């Protein structure tokens, strides 16, 4: 090989070597290397930009009814249908753990939504999680289907790993009776509307509460980044 040829081939050889995936059992070493590779891949992707990435859409997404029916068939425990509005994603979540009034539901994506008496207490795995929440005061009114005012706090992690509270002043109002049908099952109850104010903003959540004081369905506000989720009981 002449020196000139060697020189011109060098970038190609270097690129080839760098494109090799790191392997081994020592994750601390391989991860750094593989991540660096991914970054270079991203940069190349940026350079080649312009292509549409939308063709990954599934051709026929199942309807919520189909998702619910399938889940009821394959999973024996308590189930809920969940829609994360910001992600435009509807899926089911199954009971993963129960501790007193708190229920942890896991999504197939290994994220979880934690409800205390049916009211959002925490989320895990969404990147902008609610770490914890004080919901007892609003829960007392909502479950009893009573009008009133109560305080609520949701906490989020900041980048310094400190839980930052978001205190809210909420008013709760009883609304009409309502029912919903999903996968051939009918759930009926009273609608309770919770309007929470913080820092000059308001967010409105709604709960469908049964005669026994159980939240059957809800649309609840997770936080500024994640927006709202809709939850429907499929199997209590």
């Amino acid at each position, binding site marked *: 090989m002449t020196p000139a040829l060697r020189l011109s*081939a060098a970038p190609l050889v270097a690129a080839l070597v760098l494109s090799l995936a790191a392997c081994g059992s020592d994750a601390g070493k391989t991860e750094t290397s593989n991540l660096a590779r991914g970054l270079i891949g991203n940069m190349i992707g940026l350079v080649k930009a312009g292509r549409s990435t939308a063709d990954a859409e599934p051709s026929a997404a199942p309807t919520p009814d189909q998702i619910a029916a399938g889940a009821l068939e394959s999973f024996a425990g308590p189930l809920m249908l969940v829609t994360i509005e910001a992600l435009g994603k509807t899926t089911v979540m199954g009971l993963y753990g129960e501790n007193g009034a708190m229920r942890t539901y896991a999504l197939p994506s290994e994220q979880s939504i934690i409800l205390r008496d049916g009211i959002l207490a925490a989320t895990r795995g969404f990147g902008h999680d609610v770490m914890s929440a004080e919901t007892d005061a609003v829960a007392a009114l909502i479950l009893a289907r009573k009008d009133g005012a109560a305080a609520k706090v949701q906490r989020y992690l900041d980048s310094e790993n400190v839980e930052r509270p978001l205190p809210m002043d909420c008013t709760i109002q009883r609304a009409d009776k309502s029912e919903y049908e999903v996968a051939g099952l009918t759930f009926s109850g009273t609608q309770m509307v919770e309007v929470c104010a913080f820092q000059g903003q308001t967010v409105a959540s709604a709960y469908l509460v049964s005669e026994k004081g159980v939240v059957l369905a809800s649309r609840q506000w997770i936080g500024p980044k994640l927006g709202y989720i809709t939850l429907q009981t499929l199997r209590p």
Partner: protein
Amino acid sequence: MNAKHIFAATLSVSLFALQAASADPLLGGSRNSFGLLGGFDTPSAYSLPDGVIGGSTFFGAGGQRHSFAFQISPRLTAVFRYSKIDDFYAPGDALYDRSVDLHLKLLEESGWRPAVAVGVRDFIGSGAFASEYVVATKTVTPTLSISAGLGWGRLGSSNGIGTLFGDRPTPSVVSGSPINYDRWFRGEAAPFLGVNWQVNDKLTLKAEYSPDGYIDEVTRAGFDRASSLNVGLDYRIGRWSSVSAWYLYGSEVGIQFNLAIDPRNPPFPSGIEKTPLPVAPRPSRSVDPVGWSGEWAAEPQVHPAVQAEVAKALAADGMLLESMALSATSVEVRVRNQTYPSQAQALGHIARVLTRALPPSVEYLVLTSVANGMPTSAVTLRRSDVEALENSNSALLLQNATITDALAVSTGPLRPTEGVFPRFQWALTPYVEASLFDSDDPLLADVGMAASARYEFAPGLVLAGSVRQKVVGNLDQSTRVAGPDPVRSDLADYQRNGDLTIPSLTLSWYSRPAENIYTRVSFGLLERMFGGISGEVLWKPVDSRLALGVEMNYVQKRDYDQRFSFLDYKVATGHVSAYYDIGGGYTGQIDVGRYLAGDLGATLSLTREFANGWQIAAYATFTDWPDAGVDDDNFVNGIRLTIPIAWTTGKPTIASFSNTFGMSGDDGGARLSVDGRLYGTVRQSHMGELYDNWGRFWR
């Protein structure tokens, strides 16, 4: 292995990676060609937001300037720069240089008062850009700001108004110090002016009247300085970067690309790692009377069965259960966290796994963190608290947690987990090694493959090594000449050999002889350039801000082929160190002792650490290494930047990128680079760090 070596290429890759991360508007506004806010050559009095890291790379009139700016504190900015000045020595013979600036904001803008700042540019060594300034900036309308200042040095090299503080010595006459403070604010001073108009969200127009005469460039390289006026525009691309273009000195053009990253604005503050296992509360006494009685503790098969369950659950969560002690009322688990950058988060996972595996009578959970085989801290929790406070405000559980030295708890005999030791791990990874903007070797790099292996005989006793093979590169074409009795300045001689080198091969023993005391002994090929024996003792109580350490090494210089042969040079080197957690994310360190060349001196370091793992460490070393004239060997400084990978991706990993910027690779003030130094190893699971990160316990 050679931590001091500069890998600017790696950093630029990692900064590009962060593009997806920062969701805020471009931080800090429009920058000058030196990486600080301002016009082209002149600064403004503003600085970047606290903690922000900026990168900018300029190509154009006179050469290239690649600057990394670190906003170390709200007032202080440090800039490290790699630059190329075209035709500096002769036509076609450029100067490749590294330089350091400091910019200090004295007054914040307030009412009628403008912001005021003072700065020294390229103040170490030869000082091709050496200049000083005082500048005031006022925002006139929300979109228009005006800066006016006085410059010295290069910024006083045309249209001067006279000498205010005496003549500027040429060359610098400070003896024994590479910092040219004798020149600061001396010689001719000249005024400068800058105007910055933000037209809309994307576009900023700016103009400056620059006093930089470009004297060397005009005389040596035919730079045509037809005017003192520079005009430019800055156009934002996305929210994290911008492009600037200038028309300069009536004859030249330049273009610059800018990035700004805020460590406090991660893409996913709570991470996107999968949900932890939930707590499983205990059944009532009536449901499980045997479990509650504690009688099961007498059955010999219970402990191994429970331990196997716990080990399996932890392994699935990226942690290693090294050993466990179990009694009717308490458990101690010694766990190595191999996944979570926050130890508090790891503890939260361990506690929840335990609630699911232990018989109900076990009430006290002792979670012992293990680092390099050494048990460091023990966090004792009541299981009832874990059950009652799951997913609640994390501070409530912390109030009821006890954090002690791991040796201060006595929970009974620890049973090693089966099949953990001996433990073998290996990895095969590509590597890049580069030498950039070195005055002798401006652009050299190698790419190759590295194989590493690690064999742990028992907790704390480790044989580890690596082998490298270059595949392609030109580091062997380095023309750099080493110093007379090199300890570090012969780096190029090592880099020339890329065939099957052994960067390190060591046998290390970590242990805990007593409470508060940690020790390390390492033997073998400790680093690329030295082999021998290294011993260290650290005193660090679990709740102490202060730690003290002693390190002694006896090493011999390795031969350039980096296999098993040695050169003649031998040295005893070592330091006494004090570490102090100042609070607010700052840690200070002082090392006093004997360096690799036998020179005596001290290193001062200040680290700014964000709880999410970003670290910016500034260090300076002063030794009695003989002043060799133009060399700056008796003073070494730099900034080390560490970016946690988990921050960029949101996925948990303890891996991070680390980069050093600065004047390094010289013979004076050089330290041995040995793996596994104790302070960094131990600190993560001690009280300060656990408290700082406790918010992640329930994550």
